[in-house]
């Protein structure tokens, strides 16, 4: 390492993971990753150039979508590789230390917290469940008000029709929200923990689909089949709602240490 180098942190794991197990794994700069051990814990890190990954260049590059996508995928690939070798606490993207000694200090100082989190995620994985609504099907049960005919003037008819449309729209949205709440409650029963995320703007998913639900769950590995079966069952028994399961993810959403 030179003065221009920094240490990029990928994840914290137990000391059952060592350099030999990380031999094939490369990081965000294509660099080999390695284990820095202290206090019974291992930080999986890579040495990167601060001229590329230091604060100032990073902040500029984060605006470059191609660069960001490649970096995010490389970061996740290392975390996922470590996850296959042992329980893992993922670090948020772009956590850098100046050298290995400072990483060891971190492991020693936060031993209790990392230890507790590692125990919490051992034998478990994160799964994402997204729900998409079909407004046409969801609105089928919603009563339509009879369209006004006869005596009412044209303007009145328009206003009444407009009001009926708005109220039908609100009914469909309320219905979708009810479904979302029930789905989350059902999934929580098969999971250790779960949380609802913001639904993603359809522009971002590239789908025109209407996302009504976005949850993520920490599931015991020996209950994954049951969890997946529940997702399928909920998907089948709720017309107008399509569920999508993603995973296994490293436990990004359940690492739970801040500050």
């Amino acid at each position, binding site marked *: 390492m030179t003065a221009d180098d920094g240490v990029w942190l990928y994840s914290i794991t137990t000391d059952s993971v060592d350099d030999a197990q990380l031999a094939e794994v490369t990081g965000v700069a294509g660099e080999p990753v390695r284990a820095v051990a202290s206090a019974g814990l291992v930080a999986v890190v890579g040495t990167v150039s*601060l001229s590329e990954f230091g604060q100032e260049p990073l902040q500029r590059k984060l605006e470059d979508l191609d660069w960001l996508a490649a970096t995010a995928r490389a970061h996740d690939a290392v975390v996922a590789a470590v996850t296959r070798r042992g329980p893992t606490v993922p670090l*948020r993207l772009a956590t850098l*230390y100046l050298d290995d000694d400072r990483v060891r200090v971190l492991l020693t100082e936060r031993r209790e917290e990392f230890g507790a989190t590692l125990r919490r995620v051992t034998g478990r994985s994160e799964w994402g469940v997204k729900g998409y609504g079909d407004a046409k099907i969801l609105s089928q049960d919603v009563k339509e008000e009879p369209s006004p005919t006869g005596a009412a003037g044209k303007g009145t008819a328009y206003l009444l029709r407009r009001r009926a449309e708005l109220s039908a729209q609100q009914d469909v949205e309320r219905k979708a929200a009810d479904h979302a709440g029930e789905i989350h409650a059902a999934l929580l029963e098969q999971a250790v923990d779960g949380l609802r995320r913001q639904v993603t703007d359809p522009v971002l998913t*590239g789908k025109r689909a209407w996302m009504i639900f976005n949850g993520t769950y920490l599931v015991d590995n020996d209950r994954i089949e049951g969890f997946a079966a529940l997702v399928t069952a909920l998907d089948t028994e709720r017309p107008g709602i399509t569920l999508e399961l993603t995973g296994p993810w490293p436990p990004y959403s359940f690492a739970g240490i801040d500050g």
Partner: protein
Amino acid sequence: MSEMVPTEDTRRIALVDLLDRVLGGGVVITGEITLSLADVDMVRISLRTLIASVSALVPDPAEQDSADG
């Protein structure tokens, strides 16, 4: 010789899902660090704008279906 690829490596990951997790999840450690994304929300907002502007350039085949909507 054929290669076995672990399922984890072949999982299709939507970029938005991934960014939500690596930028919005994971352990946040502040302190003696060269960089911390302190303004993650700001970064995410600008990323979302960026992704939106990229996907807006890609023609959407479903566009015509919704012409009546």
